[in-house]
């Protein structure tokens, strides 16, 4: 049975062969390699043999702990103050070689909050990676709805029978064709703190009221600047997907709507939007996955800075795997990203499922 299967399909196997080999070599094997490596201490180039280390890489990345401290008091029991703030014992005394707190060893303060008299510190083994996760989530949470919404707006605008509408379609689609690296370089000039286009523009329209900002050099604006550019760059791509969704809606439905007296908004609410359901699911998942992969913009524009304000998961993976030659740590980050994206896609699918 099996020999017949192989023989009669020899030509088929020959033809499929190159593709199967390439897919296996460049997609399937690396995937399992990454999972395997993330449980070892493999380095990119190392004289030492590879050892299995279990979940150590994940612990180093994701390890979190909290500690609540009471403020220091003097002998009379009054709280010691320093610069108008209560004074707390030094964190280092707990996180460095303190035999009473072995689980805190090697951690650093991520953030802290006051609770009653005391203060609670959230400690992370890898604060930079935590920031990368938070930044990536901020990026996704802003980019996904805004980019999808803008793309839908553009798609509705260009889904009209107007003279020269193809010109607009082409213009909106152009940034998609340009490499993200080129786009990032160009926008670095736009965001430049001295003579950038954006500063000049804002200065001109506000008659100099808005001071020049170093958009990429300021921790409070850098991530926002990258978000804005990223939305602009890929909005045309999603516009085209929306457009294809719009064009699958039968024109007769719109005619029926107009005869029944639907206003523009009602037409959108009752005909267009329900007709775009599947497209919406697709676009949200695609944008989410792309947004989680945020790397090129960071690599070209900020390198994760300033003050780690634009660190992202993928940038960390590359930085660790190649920059620090810690390929197992980089693999662990990739696996974490895979799990995050997979769970979010599944949740999105579940939320947007067809209800009968």
């Amino acid at each position, binding site marked *: 049975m099996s020999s017949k299967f192989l023989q009669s399909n020899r030509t088929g196997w020959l033809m499929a062969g190159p593709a199967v080999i390439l897919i296996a070599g460049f997609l399937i094997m690396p995937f399992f390699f990454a999972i395997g490596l993330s449980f070892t201490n493999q380095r990119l180039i190392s004289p030492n043999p590879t050892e299995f280390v279990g979940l150590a890489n994940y612990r180093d990345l994701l390890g979190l702990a909290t500690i609540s401290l009471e403020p220091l008091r003097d002998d009379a029991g009054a709280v010691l103050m320093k610069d108008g703030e209560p004074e707390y014992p030094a964190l280092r005394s707990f996180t460095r070689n303190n035999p009473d707190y072995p689980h805190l060893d090697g951690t650093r303060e991520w953030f802290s909050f006051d609770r009653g008299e005391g203060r609670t510190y959230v400690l992370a083994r890898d604060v930079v990676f935590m920031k990368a996760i938070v930044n990536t989530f901020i990026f996704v949470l802003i980019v996904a709805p805004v980019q999808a919404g803008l793309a839908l707006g553009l798609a509705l605008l260009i889904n009209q029978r107007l003279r020269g509408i193809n010109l607009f379609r082409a213009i909106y689609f152009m940034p998609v064709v340009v490499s993200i690296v080129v786009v990032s370089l160009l926008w670095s000039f736009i965001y430049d703190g001295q003579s950038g286009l954006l500063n000049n523009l804002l200065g001109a329209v506000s008659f100099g009221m808005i001071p020049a900002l170093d958009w990429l050099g300021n921790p409070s604006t850098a991530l926002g600047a990258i978000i804005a550019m990223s939305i602009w760059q890929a909005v045309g791509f999603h516009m085209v997907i929306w457009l294809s969704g719009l064009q699958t809606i*039968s024109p*007769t*439905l719109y*005619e*029926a*709507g*107009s*005869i*029944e*007296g*639907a*206003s523009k908004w*009602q037409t959108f609410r*009752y*005909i267009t939007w*329900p*007709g775009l*359901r599947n497209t919406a699911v697709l676009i949200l998942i695609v944008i989410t996955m792309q947004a989680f992969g945020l790397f090129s913009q960071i690599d070209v524009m900020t390198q994760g800075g300033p003050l780690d304000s634009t660190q992202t998961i993928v940038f960390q993976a590359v930085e660790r795997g190649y920059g620090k030659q810690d390929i197992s740590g980089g693999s662990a980050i990739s696996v974490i990203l895979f799990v995050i994206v997979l769970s979010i896609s599944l949740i999105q699918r579940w939320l947007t499922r067809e209800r*009968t």
Partner: protein
Amino acid sequence: MAGITLNDIRKSYGQVHVIKGVDITVEDGEFVVFVGPSGCGKSTLLRMIAGLEDITSGTLTIGDRTVNDLPPKDRGVAMVFQSYAIFPHMTVRENVAFGLTIAGASKEEKEAKVAEAARILQMEHLLDRRPSQLSGGQRQRVAIGRAIVRKPAVFLFDEPLSNLDAALRMDMRMEIGKLHKTLGATMIYVTHDQVEAMTLADKIVVLKDGMVQQIGAPMDLYHNPANAFVAGFIGSPSMNFLDVDVKAVNGNRITVANPSLDPVEITARHGSYTAGGKARLGIRPQYLTPETDRRSGQLHGKVALTERLGAETVVEVTLATGKSVIAALTRDAVYPLGSEISLSFNPTEVHLFSE
């Protein structure tokens, strides 16, 4: 309730003239059918009445208002489409109530009106289903339900039965006829199926190439077609046409003949004829009778095809001129292929058309 008047209505797409000056009057409560072959402009005309197409020139009046420039919703019309155009993501109930939802009607009002529409169309049991769970006929019922729920003055039907199978088409045809009697509203119905036209219409408008060929009651069109096109379009199987030579003219009594037709005198209803000229003779298949004596009929030929339908037998006869005619007999009969046959007709039941 409202009558409709079309006065010199024209429609052009650039240099292409689709509707070339149409005048039609539809009385209040009348059932008018626009009929014609594909591309004759009947659907375009209907869409112009609905407000889905602009009117290039002419005046369109619904009730006592000129509605040329009014959007569809202000014309007081409801429309049923060939492709049903029901919303796939809504239940039947939501679909039927759509117009009321749009108008912001209260929940009680919607419930009551949907229930009434469902009762009229006998689809109470379908209300909570989705369109994907319905058959074609049920979908069209929903589309009609959506149309009647707003109680419009005018109903427009754009080939509503074309996507249905033959048996269902007949059922729905009868239902639409009943609906018209129940509601008493003005209805305009577009079809290319002359059976639908004949059975439903108070008045038929025959269109060809964007022009009205004839307007009249079904039997008027059947018995007194204004031209060869109307004669050929109305009636099934369609009328036989023979090219004949005019032998003699005596007032409106014309004698015609051709190599396969013995000279026969016909009373012409219209047209002008001159002796020695050409004309077309139209004979309905039902009015051709085979003669037992082969020399007694006016047409002679050989049997080329017999279709036995039980109650009817359709015989195709190839005449000596090479031309074929169809005879429809109201009984079951056997005619062997290739056998000689002679057909006769009553000269008062045929139509003569000038070239």
